[in-house]
């Protein structure tokens, strides 16, 4: 057991060293421009960010973001299908140039890849029936908030002991949404995307995000040590946040706008 893990580490170290030397030799931006093609890793199984439509064509907010980038830079676009767990290995092993796949910025990830600035956000919110007058945490007192057990929302709200929140914990998102649809709960704590989808399923009980728990920045990921490409991507993100194109894409698929400080 010990022995095997030692070999794994050894092999991984050699691979990393090899990768590092490749990265040092070539500049990714030049490679991409020369190939006239950008390879983007996107998970197509996480609607509404990445999915496949009725004609088996990729669609979703991350897909349209990737398409916008390729169009602006005049490049051909190749989607590298990935899952959540293989997003980062895809760029580390040069199977893809960049990741656009609801990749939230965390310190652990920043150790192995580089991030651009945020192009979108994952909003963790408390959403309530549209008709409810809820503006802040104070207004949520005495209301039952449905939440999926063990999610980040559950942990964060449970820790807010002094806010006197009433939580109803369900075992998964599906049961939580059913509780909201059937009227067992008038508030839910989850992502803004799911809150907006409740109204799509039952217009009579439309929910909207009321109180923000936390925003997770979503950024484009790329392998370490590519400052020129990172810089160019940052410029592109700034431009498209300013002209509203990224916000438009986000709103089209997630039902709400990006946080105001991002749009600025």
């Amino acid at each position, binding site marked *: 057991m010990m022995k095997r893990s030692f070999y794994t580490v050894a092999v991984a170290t050699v691979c990393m060293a090899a990768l590092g030397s490749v990265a040092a030799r070539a500049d990714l931006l030049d490679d991409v421009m020369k190939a006239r093609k950008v390879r983007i890793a996107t998970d197509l199984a996480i609607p509404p960010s990445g999915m496949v439509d009725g004609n088996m064509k990729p669609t979703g907010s991350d897909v349209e973001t990737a398409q916008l980038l390729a169009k602006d830079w005049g490049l051909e676009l190749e989607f590298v299908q990935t899952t959540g767990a293989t997003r980062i290995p895809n760029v580390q092993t040069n199977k893809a140039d960049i990741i656009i796949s609801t990749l939230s910025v965390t310190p652990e990830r920043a150790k192995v890849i580089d991030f651009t600035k945020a192009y979108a956000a994952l909003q963790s919110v408390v959403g309530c029936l549209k008709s409810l007058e809820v503006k802040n945490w104070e207004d949520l007192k005495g209301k039952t908030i449905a939440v999926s057990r063990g999610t980040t929302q559950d942990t964060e709200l449970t820790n807010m002991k002094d806010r006197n929140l009433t939580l109803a914990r369900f075992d998964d998102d599906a049961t939580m949404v059913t509780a909201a649809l059937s*009227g067992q709960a008038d508030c839910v704590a989850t992502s803004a995307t799911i809150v907006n989808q409740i109204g799509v399923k039952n217009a009579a009980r439309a929910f909207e995000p009321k109180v923000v728990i936390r925003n997770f920045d979503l950024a484009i990921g790329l392998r370490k040590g590519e400052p020129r490409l990172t810089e160019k991507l940052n410029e592109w993100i700034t431009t498209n946040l300013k002209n509203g194109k990224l916000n438009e894409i986000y709103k089209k698929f997630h039902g709400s706008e990006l946080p105001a400080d991002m749009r600025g």
Partner: protein
Amino acid sequence: MNLNLDFAAILERWPVFLDGALLTLELAFIATVLGALIGALGAIGRRSSHPLIARICGIYVESIRNTPLLVQIFLVYFGLASLGMKFSAFTVAAAALTINVGAYTTEIMRAGFDSIPRGQIEAAEGLALSRPQIYWHVVLWPAIEKVYPALTSQFVLLMLASSVTSQISAEELTAVANYVQSDTYRAFETYILVAIAYVFLSLIMRAGFWLLGLVLFPRRRRLGTPL
């Protein structure tokens, strides 16, 4: 295999486990008392000479005994809410468990009633007891005494089955365990502890039923033998 168990992280959360265990017992208590009542009435109804009453009781028993408890719980919880009637998860859990155990108890009690020999009833008639007297002294109590072990099992099973009410956010013992394990990532330890806790709850219930049996059935108290 290298198994690394750490119970300390789980044990320090004993207050929430205690709350969960108390709620489980509370659910079991309410459902047992009300379920026994429904069971007695249901069994009498099922043996009624009035065909409509017998039929209604039969439909109740068969529809409950042939559907899963979880589906019944969802029906009550989400169904009532869709009709505009909103009850807390605890109320719904207690109600659904009562409805469920009531049906099983009806069947067990009916078996008890069927086991009373006709001769015993005729003897009571011969002694000029009234109909209510016969039902109370000669049919009901001997019937309950005969099926008492089966009833005990059924109510202990009900307490264990209350674990599925965690699905509708009732914060009983299993719900607490689900939460703690998702927070500590110590799933194996959590469920080992919870399994032990359920064994204790079962023993508590069995001891309770044994004591209750001594109170309810004088012959058991005096002779020490079951009927």
